[in-house]
């Protein structure tokens, strides 16, 4: 029987938006949905997922799972998927999902596809599409020769359902005792407590037009008002103004937020490869000929040092 299993990710007991989107998609299709959760608060995650329509959960709850260990997670997830007898596994194309599921797929001798931007569930059928060649085209995905479809969806692509009340049947699996070849020694939390770029719903990105590193504060202020995550072009990463983890583009992160605000970014093809599937793109640039305007939904031709503080104030005014 066809069965959908959503890999639920949460942080601090709150479901990630991408997970809620997947739960909503399955719920709206009328199919039964189970989840799979592992971590230090997997039970909380399961109960949260119930609010979005999940009726069953297979969990592994252990403080050992607070940090991601690819080897341990692979063994557990493979085991849990087999238990569930699911035919389709849905997960977010987060950095954890992207690292974990290709290996899970290989172990299950089945296909895993990352970075999908379209998902349609009709009956037990799923149709997915993903961008290819730096978003210069997209294609539909066909699964062959494998017992299970593993689909990783980019966040911010699907509608979010509202939470309701629901009950969930939880099955726990024990942490296996393994002789691991992978040891996580330490995890240094990123300075930013904000959402990862790949999951952010709003991104404010800066380029060389900002002139110098300290002017990124202008973007930080704007981002704080919007609850946005700050991104950057490669030019400023190469200049050492900001960390590579903030780079958007072909050799940085591929993002698809609802709103992408590009400030002082010219819009090189390699940058656009990473953000062109954003729902709404705003470009702020003093050069009316900058290529970024060709991809933008809205453009302001002007000096960012003039525009940014006013924009931050205006957002503050209307959003408060």
């Amino acid at each position, binding site marked *: 029987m066809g069965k959908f299993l959503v890999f639920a990710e949460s942080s601090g007991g709150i479901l990630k938006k991408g997970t809620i989107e997947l739960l909503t998609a399955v719920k709206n299709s009328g199919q039964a949905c189970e989840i799979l959760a592992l971590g230090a608060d997997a039970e909380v995650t399961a109960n949260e997922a119930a609010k979005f329509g999940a009726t069953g959960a297979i969990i592994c709850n252990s403080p050992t799972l607070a940090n991601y260990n690819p080897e341990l997670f692979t063994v557990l997830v493979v085991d849990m998927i087999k238990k569930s007898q699911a035919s389709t596994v849905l997960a977010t194309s987060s950095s954890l999902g992207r690292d974990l599921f*290709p290996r899970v797929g290989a172990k299950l001798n089945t296909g895993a596809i990352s970075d999908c931007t379209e998902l349609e569930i009709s009956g037990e059928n799923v149709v997915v599409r993903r961008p290819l060649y730096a978003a210069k085209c997209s294609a539909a995905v066909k*699964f062959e020769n494998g017992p299970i479809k593993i689909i990783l969806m980019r966040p911010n692509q699907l509608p979010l359902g509202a939470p309701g009340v629901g009950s969930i049947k939880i099955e726990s699996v024990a942490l296996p005792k393994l002789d691991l070849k*992978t040891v996580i020694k330490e995890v240094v939390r990123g300075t930013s407590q904000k959402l990862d770029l790949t999951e952010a719903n709003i991104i404010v990105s800066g380029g060389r037009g900002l002139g110098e590193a300290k002017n990124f504060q202008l973007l930080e202020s704007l981002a704080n008002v919007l609850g946005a995550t700050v991104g950057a072009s490669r030019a400023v990463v190469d200049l050492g103004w900001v960390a590579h983890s903030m780079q958007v583009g072909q050799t940085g992160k591929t993002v698809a937020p609802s709103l992408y605000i590009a400030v002082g970014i010219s819009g090189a093809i390699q940058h656009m490869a990473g953000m062109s599937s954003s729902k709404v793109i705003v470009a702020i640039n003093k050069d009316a000929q900058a290529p970024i305007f060709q991809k933008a939904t809205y453009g302001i031709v002007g000096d960012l040092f003039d525009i940014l503080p006013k924009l931050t104030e205006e957002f503050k005014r209307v959003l408060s």
Partner: protein
Amino acid sequence: MKIFVCIKQVPDTETKIKIAEDKCGIDVSSVSKWIISPYDEYALEEAVKTKESNPGAKVIAICVGPAKRTQSTLRTSLAMGADEAIAIDAPDSLDTHLTALALAKAIKNEGGCDLVFCGKLAIDDNASAVTQQLAEFLDMPHATVVTKFENSAGISIITREGDGGNKELIELKSPAVLGASKGLNTPRFVSLPNIMKAKAKPLKEVTLASLDVSLEQRKISFFDFRPPPAKPSTKIVGGEAEQQVKELVRLLREESKVL
């Protein structure tokens, strides 16, 4: 010490992409320039650096793809410091699963290895899958998005970039498969003498059939290729800064409703 580096040949980032007649791929004949996928340059550089600090070590570059075309990329890899190269002749339509399987079998045929370096992802399919699949088929631990690497006494000590800019310090028992990211090193320039030397280095060709891998076994294929949806034309918000800002915020709230 034997180190493999997996090199993918991809269309240059600036190339225009033409969709094939049958819409089941791109028209590869329209691609004017092929390059080493940028992250694989970091992988190669790290392999060569590791070799340089481990006397007697050997670096083998390995690439899956149409051998006639990928040879040039492998020659470049040899010029960048690899000692030998293997071209696994295969169609472009192989999926990541079979690519990894072919790589694993070829590596095993060579008697295994101590380390494998891959790139964080290939910039054409953006899959970030082959590294982990290869590790599974070789039964080795893996780490992706590696920004720092040290090797001592059979242990790889790496730093990887996790979610939200987290830095994860991980130890892996060798042999291991590592996915190189930016920040790991600065790939060296290819010098003319090294290009000349590369011509004399061994480059061998291996068929998919000899590895017992066939296209029919693939798990994933793509069809119905389409160009990206046309964006509605850009609305340029005019006026003085105050007006521009007010109008933009209004549009975001009332027209596109993203806020």
